[in-house]
């Protein structure tokens, strides 16, 4: 699952339109848009709102084996051109001084910049950083649910030293929309990375059907997870494995049989 967090509807709109996300009528608290493999939450402005929305949607998606995240929104910059797009390499929370570092693991077609998360909008500009109001709250919260390689911020310059006037909502959408192809490429790479993590997890339905075969203690469940994780990664069919152990009556016997299959399979690396 890929989760987008945007502060404003006008920032979210290009993503909603591009992926044809549908608003979920069932959820209150935050506006949620979704399709089968991604969802987007409109958090509202500020790092606290971003953190709350991130935690809220993480709880909603807690059954997902692995989750990737993108915070997307506008930012101020000293001299970068209006409309230029950035992948954020370092997030500094202005009020706490805390730094966070998203981890690049695939090639990134955006410019790269540090960004500073402010508590309040400001017209102060420094050349070395973008300014915005959500990234630190988003990142600090998302790292409680996913590893940093799966959590990223994309920022689009909406104002600079020379042009400080506030953008109309439609103009903000247009500004982000012009990068939608690059954003999509980034999102696809991130989803691939996330898929790698998902492939190493045991599907919940498979896990439940094995657990139904006998009563496993907590220790046995941990052992079962290791054995099953290995066998499934080697292409063993979950149903066939269930079938094979269905004759066994005790959890010990099931574990013993699966373990033997594992030892035979791994003997020659």
């Amino acid at each position, binding site marked *: 699952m890929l989760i987008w967090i945007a502060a404003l509807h006008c920032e979210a709109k290009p993503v909603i339109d591009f992926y044809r996300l549908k608003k979920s009528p069932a959820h209150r608290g935050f506006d949620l848009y979704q399709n089968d493999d991604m969802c987007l939450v409109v958090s509202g402005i500020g790092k606290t709102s971003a953190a709350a929305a991130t935690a809220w949607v993480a709880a909603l998606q807690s059954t997902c084996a692995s989750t990737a995240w993108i915070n997307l929104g506008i930012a101020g910059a000293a001299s970068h051109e209006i409309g230029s797009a950035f992948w954020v*390499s*370092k997030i500094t929370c202005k009020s706490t001084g805390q*730094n966070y*570092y998203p*981890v*690049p*693991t*695939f090639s990134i077609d955006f410019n*790269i910049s*540090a960004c500073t998360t402010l508590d309040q909008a400001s017209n102060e500009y420094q050349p070395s950083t973008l300014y915005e109001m959500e990234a630190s709250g988003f990142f600090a919260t998302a*790292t*409680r649910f*996913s*590893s*940093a*390689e*799966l959590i990223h911020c994309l920022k689009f310059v909406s104002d600079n030293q020379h042009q400080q006037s506030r953008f109309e909502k439609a103009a903000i959408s247009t500004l982000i929309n012009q990068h939608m192809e690059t954003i999509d490429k980034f999102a696809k790479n991130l989803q691939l*990375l996330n898929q*790698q*993590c998902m492939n*190493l997890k045991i599907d919940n339905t498979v896990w439940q059907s094995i657990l139904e075969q006998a009563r496993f203690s907590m220790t046995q469940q941990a052992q079962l997870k*290791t*054995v099953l*994780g*290995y066998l499934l*990664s*080697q292409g063993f069919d979950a149903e066939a494995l269930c079938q094979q152990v269905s004759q066994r009556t005790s959890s010990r016997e099931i574990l013993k049989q699966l373990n033997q299959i*594992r*030892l035979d*399979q*791994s*003997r*020659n*690396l």
Partner: protein
Amino acid sequence: MVSCVYVEAAVRDHSRTQKILDRYRQTPVVEIEHHGEVFNPRAQNFRLQKSNPALIISSKHQRRVMSAPEGYGLGGQHNYYFSHMLNCLYDCRYCFLQGMYPSAHQVIFVNYEDFADSITEAVELHAPDPVWFFSGYDCDSLAYEPVTRFAEFFVPFIARTENSWLELRTKSTQIRQLLKIEACQRVVTAFSFTEAYSHAKLEHGVPSIAKRIEAMKALSEAGWPIGLRFDPLVYHDNFTQSFARLIEQIFSSIDASHIHSVSLGTFRLPKDNFRQIQRLYPDEALFAQKLELNNAMMGYPLSQEQTMINDCESLLMKYINPETYFPCEWYE
């Protein structure tokens, strides 16, 4: 390829940093306060990072030179290790570094002169006894030489520091720097090998056995003492035959009288490292083999371990002087 270079602000202007940055002009550079900010956070996935790690340029202020663990050594009385780098260019699936650090980024400590001071202090403490320094505990000593210029600095330093001995531990073929200078008998370049089958299965990105033997030959012919480390020995049905082929291959190229030291040890990992690595690589056959817990280490059952060691020892003894043999109590 590195994905990004993180540089500690305090060493941004260091000449070694500048030389490294020159090599990565196209790579994004991010300034940081301390390498721990990027390297230590828990919410990181070593496996995901390993496919495209970043470089972190830092300096080491404390504990630069550490006493080696009990049993670590080549017969010397005073043994130390030091790490100018954390993590490795290569990706050996049995490597304990995978479970050691939360991050796969490669950290380079550029304050070599401070390391040299700490080495001098240790040498003076034990004078006139010989003192051994092992590099390549938290990294491969030579693999990153074109970037780190580690050997370029430390080998001449050891050569002029009486009573100091250095082991460079490597799986690389980066010997160009050593060949440029006069051989020093107190610097042992120890090449690690696993036999061909395990090499193919487990040592990702490591140069071929043939290339490493070639490098070893060139060094020994230039007069440098050479070490052989058969560690870890990894079990499979044809292990013994494959190991026999490996040592045949080595000793058909290398004059055994040029060998300074030989050691071997079976695959084993500290229990906690093992758990961590197995969680990262649940699909890896090595960790699904028959392993047992012994003295807080996960390894092959003791009887199997002993058989593997005995078989290898008897094959080795056909070629080497027994005095150069140091049964291995440690793992790489």
